[in-house]
């Protein structure tokens, strides 16, 4: 079941940072990895993904470089920075807190 867009909106950055923590990726690869990992429940369109990547880069949470693998197209790869790691850690904490709190409320109700 696809994830509600409104719910997803505030967590996009966390999602992208988390993906880049394990592996530096180019935009298309990143979108593919998220889609596969979430079994198609989260699909990042180009209109969402690229403004998000550029915004994270402007905030110095990620940095980019161009690479040209043999026999393949030249592509722009994104890598997590130290600041990005710190940011991700904070976001993860507050997300876990949020989930815990919501769970408490929902289970109590």
């Amino acid at each position, binding site marked *: 079941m696809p994830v509600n867009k409104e719910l997803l909106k505030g967590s996009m950055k966390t999602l992208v940072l988390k993906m880049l923590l394990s592996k530096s990726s180019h935009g298309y690869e990143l979108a593919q990895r998220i889609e596969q990992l979430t079994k198609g429940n989260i699909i990042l369109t180009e*209109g969402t993904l690229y403004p998000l990547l550029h915004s994270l880069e402007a905030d110095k949470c990620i940095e980019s470089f161009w690479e040209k693998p043999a026999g393949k197209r030249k*592509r722009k790869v994104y890598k997590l920075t130290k600041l990005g790691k710190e940011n991700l850690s904070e976001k993860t904490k507050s997300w876990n807190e949020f989930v815990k709190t919501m769970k408490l409320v929902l289970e109590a109700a």
Partner: protein
Amino acid sequence: MKRLNNYIRAVCQKIKNKDLRKSTYRELKTHYLMKLEKIMKDKKLNKNEAIEVILKSAGNPKKIGAKINLANTPWFFRYPYIMLSLVSSSILFITVILMTSYIMHQRFFPKLISFLSSSESFYSLIIKDLEAIEKAPIFKPHSRERNAHIFLSKKFKNQGEGKNFLNDINAFSAKHQILKIDQNSFSKVLQDPDLMKIDTSWAQEIYSFDHWNYFEDEVIKRNIKRVSGGDSIEKISFIASYSIPELFTFLKWSAIYSLQMLEKRRPEEGAKFFRHAVNLVNSTGSNIGQNIAVIGLKFESKFLEVNQIDSKRTTVELADTYKRVSWGWISLVNEISIDSSKISALKKYMKPEFGFCSAITEYPMGLSLMSSFFSNPWPFELNLEKEIKENLTFQEAALEECGLKVLKPLLRPDKREATWSKKSGIGNSSFVAVPYVRQLLAYHLFLTAKPRYTSLYDNLVVK
């Protein structure tokens, strides 16, 4: 393929930075080509069909381009109106500061400096007055050290049930305007049966107390040290009322006693007693005491004249001279810059019998009190710290000169003193934090508190 390229171009058109536009075009092109290959492979579609699939879900290119452009725009360009208002406010603030600085430096500061400095006429007037007092001394230089505080406190408290006693004195005095009595009113006062009802039975005991230079008394020395930690108001109240509690009432009571003596046909005794009381009041060393003593001198002058007592009489004019001098000294010690050539001429008069003590005991009300308003200013404000320090050095030298070293603790502002203005209502107001406002406030307070010697001549009507 052309359609896909056009789409990517449409996205990139919204990106303002040329380099970013080129790099984003390449980035998106790679992305879509990879996507295209995958769709063709997974869905077994030809190129055109796969492009059709991509474009269907691609979204509005202008909106996407605008979002990418915004993500790469520094925050201060994202909100142009906020930035514009911030820049305008800053320009306005700087303009106000510059204009205020100009006005303050061109107009206010010279005015303030001139206000805090003595004029030539000031020196000539005070020297003239001091010479007049020197020719006909009003008070003698004294050395005995006694204190009437405990005695008078007890008497005022115990006589006629305390308050009533003081009330009776004040009521009788007010009825006949005793201290302002004129030649024709003497007989009227003497006819009032209430005159003899006021208890003066212990009056003669006052002669045991003659406390000139009472500052040298060991008890008061200790108390000066104690009070020096307090604020200016405490210091002045202490000095003004220490040796003679109920200063003004005491003088009225003394006038009543001398009138009782007149009624008993012993006017000389009354006159002698009253002069002693005036001496005591004057020797409190405060401006208040000296001004009340002047009122006493005027009463004494009329008393001696009416009763044709062959005693050395202080004229009303000379009494007023003493009053001016008392204020004049305060004015002098509140100058921020003191002309050394003038100081040498004034040195020989820096003695209690020339009313100098008022300068010292009232001093904390002046420059010292205001010093925190003039120190630690903003860089563009007026800084009078150096002048205030020099002034204090002069003060101390003046104290040495007239043998009043004991009053030194009253001069040097201690930690509490320096923050007095901050603790007070004015000091706590937010106006004080605004550059220049604090100094304007100090100027206006000073204008009220600091006597201007020359204006004393205009305001003091000799009667």
